């Protein structure tokens, strides 16, 4: 369903990244990084009113093969989801659902008292759940 799901910390350091296609990993990582700039623009963090009050930012940009969507929590953690451009069956509300679920998983993961905020997310529980989300079997 999705090619790549990434969680990026407040300071733009990646906390978690997974791709379904190892061959495209570098390209996907590049998309994620590029997306962060768009996110910054959209949110204008710290500089006046953001464009939208919604946490879901929608489509950040698209390339020939990929569509890149973004989401920023109130705590300034960014979620980036890359999906296949050719997948026309995937509707907007399904993308929203991916983010909503990802947000739930993320909040649960940081509520683990043994997780230190800002460190990369190594939780197996989190990873398993995200993999399911990515394959659309969640």
């Amino acid at each position, binding site marked *: 369903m999705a090619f790549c799901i990434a969680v990026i910390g407040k300071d733009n350091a990646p906390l978690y990244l997974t791709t379904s296609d190892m061959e495209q990993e570098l390209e996907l990582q590049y998309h994620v990084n590029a997306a962060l700039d768009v996110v910054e623009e959209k949110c204008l963090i710290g500089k006046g*009113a953001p464009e939208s009050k*919604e946490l879901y930012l929608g489509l950040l940009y698209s390339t020939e093969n990929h569509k890149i969507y973004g989401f920023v*929590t109130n*705590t300034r953690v960014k979620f980036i989801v890359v999906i296949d451009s050719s997948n026309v069956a995937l509707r907007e509300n399904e993308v929203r659902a991916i983010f909503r679920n990802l947000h739930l998983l*993320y*909040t649960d993961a940081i*509520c683990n008292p043994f997780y230190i905020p800002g460190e990369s997310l190594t939780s197996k529980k989190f990873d398993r759940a995200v993999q399911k989300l990515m394959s659309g079997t969640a």
Partner: protein
Amino acid sequence: MSEEILFDCLHAEIVNYCLDSNKEHDLATLEYIGFTTGYRLIERLTREVSRFKDELETMKFICTDFWMLIYKKQVDNLRTNNHGMYVVQDKAFRFLTRISPGTKQLEHAPKFVAFTCGLVRGALSNLGINSTVTAEVQSIPACKFHIEVNRN
């Protein structure tokens, strides 16, 4: 009500644990337990909340919604000097309402507000606001929390 007493008991025990004279513990430990709790908790409490516009909106959320959820009552007064100083006044602060007012008890008051100072600081910190939170108890059970935003 039933969950409240459970938490109040836990809170009282955490206070005892942190201020047990046998250990080199102090209010800072207690504050830190509050901090990590607030930091994580706010992640959950703001999940369904639309994006905060600015510092004032964030502060309002902490002092109204957040306070209501945790302390089961509204703050009695919220003031700001518009220069990053906020004062929250709670005339019957949850962790003080069962303590007898009196000078002897007043000495103990800092123990019962330290966790909350940390809680608020932690919540704000995760929302991107670096602050210093102190509490002032002049007469039990009233308490004033001073939140000073560090804008550097």
